[in-house]
């Protein structure tokens, strides 16, 4: 019986040693092809594969991160700075801080503000609708209400408000991945910095029509009258193509413009509650 034991030990050990030797030479001859940092970096990423970073999924992004000499402009909107810091750590670099953003809908053409002029009956898809015609209201710039953005959002941050026919952003869920921005054929959604204490002042309209036309189409439209531009003490507001725009980097949240707008097209978000401050 002891011979069996001997044979066993000798055989397996010899096999093991031979294997080790072979593996050693193999390892010498064929160095690792793929940079193993890629996997480590990928492990840091959220794994949502949303494409918000502009790559085809997280693995692809990891490859790009590792290949890039400087992470610099590469940014994962979902994971935010926290993840980018981790990645930077792995790669031994400094992460570039980016302001946290959030999706903002720039249309207030609810069923009340914007009467329907016809009934759309095609496939319920903003893309299809936009390709077909200017929409079922007189406003050619406003939200089409079929919710392409809602289905584009991987994080459940968007939902369709049935009463207004407009999508609403759940700011706590939005990761600023930008999928909705890309999905909207009317470019109504903008990613804006969340702002100081999460407060924002935004022109909630996208109509470039002349004042009268815009007003006729939608009672909440920006008519490009320029009053806000005049009153803004910080020069944050510009008007182009009959449409006002508030530059978030200049806006100091004084909210003067909000009350100045004759159509109520300027909204403030998340300011401490005061009476009469309804968004919709």
């Amino acid at each position, binding site marked *: 019986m002891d011979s069996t034991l001997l044979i066993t030990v000798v055989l*397996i050990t010899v096999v*093991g040693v031979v*294997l*080790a030797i072979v*593996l*050693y030479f193999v*390892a010498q001859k064929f160095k690792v092809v793929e940079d193993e940092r890629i996997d480590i970096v990928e492990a840091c990423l959220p794994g949502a594969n949303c494409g918000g970073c502009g790559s085809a999924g997280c693995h692809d992004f990891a490859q790009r991160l590792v290949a890039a000499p400087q992470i610099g402009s590469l940014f994962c909107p979902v994971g935010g700075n926290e993840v980018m810091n981790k990645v930077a750590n792995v790669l031994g670099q400094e992460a570039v801080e980016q302001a946290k953003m959030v999706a903002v809908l720039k249309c207030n053409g609810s069923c009340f503000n914007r009467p329907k002029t016809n009934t759309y009956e095609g496939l319920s898809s903003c893309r299809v609708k936009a390709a077909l015609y200017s929409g079922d209201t007189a406003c050619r710039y406003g939200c089409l209400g079929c919710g392409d953005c809602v289905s584009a959002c991987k994080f459940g941050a968007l939902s369709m408000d049935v009463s207004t026919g407009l999508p609403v952003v759940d700011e706590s869920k939005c990761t600023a991945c930008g999928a909705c921005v890309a999905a909207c054929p009317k470019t109504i959604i903008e990613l804006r910095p969340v702002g100081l204490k999460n407060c924002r002042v935004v022109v909630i309209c996208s109509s470039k029509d002349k004042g009268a036309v815009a007003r006729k189409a939608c009672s909440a439209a920006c008519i490009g009258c320029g009053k806000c531009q005049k009153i803004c003490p910080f020069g944050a507001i510009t008007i182009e193509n009959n449409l006002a725009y508030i530059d978030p980097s200049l806006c100091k949240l004084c909210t003067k413009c909000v009350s100045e707008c004759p159509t109520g097209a300027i909204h403030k978000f998340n300011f401490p509650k005061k009476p009469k401050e309804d968004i919709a």
Partner: protein
Amino acid sequence: MTKLKLLTKGIIKDNPTFALVLGMCPTLGTTTSAINGMGMGVATLFVLILSNMVVSAVARFIPDKVRIPSYIVIISAFVTIVQLLIQAYIPSLYDTLGLFIPLIVVNCIVLGRAEAFANKHNVIDSALDGIGIGLGFTLSLTVIGLVREILGSGSAFGWKFMEPYGMLIFVLAPGAFLVLGYLMVLFKKLTTKKA
């Protein structure tokens, strides 16, 4: 992570069968009855504990390039030992589990835990992890075996309560897949609701 959590996470959160989807072959192959499933589970549990402990103990000394072969040798040694023991002392179980005992070697769970957990943690934690995961595996296999046994042979743990009405298909291959598929969905539903 507390020690208790280490021990329990394998049962629900990291359940090897339903959550991690590892070691599908023995899961499907040996669960023709609750007892068989349990037998396989326990055998795996043993190997898992031992290999986890040993791997965590020696991981420091093993160079990367021979990591996998070394782990495989360790694991297969334990598997063989378990196999010999079962063969010697529970020959009837040996007959039913058959080919699947040696296949514990390639059960992704064992190697997977060695890779993912044991080589980064100390011996105690690794043992606990092994126990947790092993228990989770045993539990899942027992449940699957039980469902298949009830539906397939009309008995539970060998207790025959409605024998002639078994649906044969559940003892056979198709039933294994179906039961596992639906149980997995049930597991998903139950666990996500809690969270």
